């Protein structure tokens, strides 16, 4: 049990670090959506099903969609 949680936390931190490194902005947004998804799984392990549902639907889906629509209206690559 503790190994699963440790593995998920390490994956989340690697995803957050990758979101700061990528130069292509759409890849950075997908890494941030991965961080939100793993945070939703950790919310379920902490016995909070309401918050897990809210984070999965709002954080992982709608935030990524709004970001991608805004990026296609501006530049795609960081300068």
């Amino acid at each position, binding site marked *: 049990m503790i190994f699963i949680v440790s593995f998920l936390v390490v994956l989340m931190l690697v995803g957050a670090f990758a979101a700061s490194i990528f130069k292509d902005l759409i890849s950075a947004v997908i890494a941030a959506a991965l961080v939100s998804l793993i945070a939703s799984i950790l919310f379920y392990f902490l016995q909070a*099903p*309401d918050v897990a549902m809210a984070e999965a639907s*709002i954080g992982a*889906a*709608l935030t990524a969609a709004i970001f991608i*629509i805004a990026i296609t*209206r501006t530049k795609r690559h960081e300068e």
Partner: protein
Amino acid sequence: MRRIISILLLVIVALGISLSLAKIPFGTPKTKVGRYYINKGIKETGAANIVTSVVVNYRGFDTLGEVTVLFIAAIGLGAVLTASGREKMRKTEPASMVLYTGCRLLFPLIIIFGTYIFIHGHLTPGGGFQGGAIIASGFLLIYLGCRERRISRLASNLAESLGGLLFVVIGLFGLVSGGYFLSNFLPKGTANELFSAGIIPIIYIAIGFKVGSELTGIIDNLIEES
């Protein structure tokens, strides 16, 4: 120079946070208010989901503030983006038959699922915000898959305003009949049934409509190249 100062600031913040995090024990009960809400929750509100009774009944005023913040953000986004300049219309090709039919089949299922989640907010995990977000995801699927359909601006604005108005009107009814704003004036019924918990299902239905149409309006303002 700026990099050195920001790295120094980060080290100081990290030291401060980690030193204070080591003093907070993990897994012990810390407050007494939580125990009070769990013990007296069903008797005073009638809702089986304690988090719902805290969000709508015990701390209902904070939910009114949150609904206001979401409303202001949607209005601000509409005001900033409509005044922008004309963009040239990007050529979009019509979607293929498989994508079009698949989106049209999935759309009513997603709407029904979102409605189920916010109607049963006081019995199972869920509620107005989660259900509204799922409904907005359904509309996003229509925008991405079937490009020719558009949601009418008037219907979405009307649903959003009526949802917010219903919330405030129910609070005022509570003021008239109970003595304080948002008091629970409908009969509480027995727990674990659909028609129980007083005004909580009605408020969550209003919040579900409002959040769903608000997030749809945000996506519509961002996509629309007017």
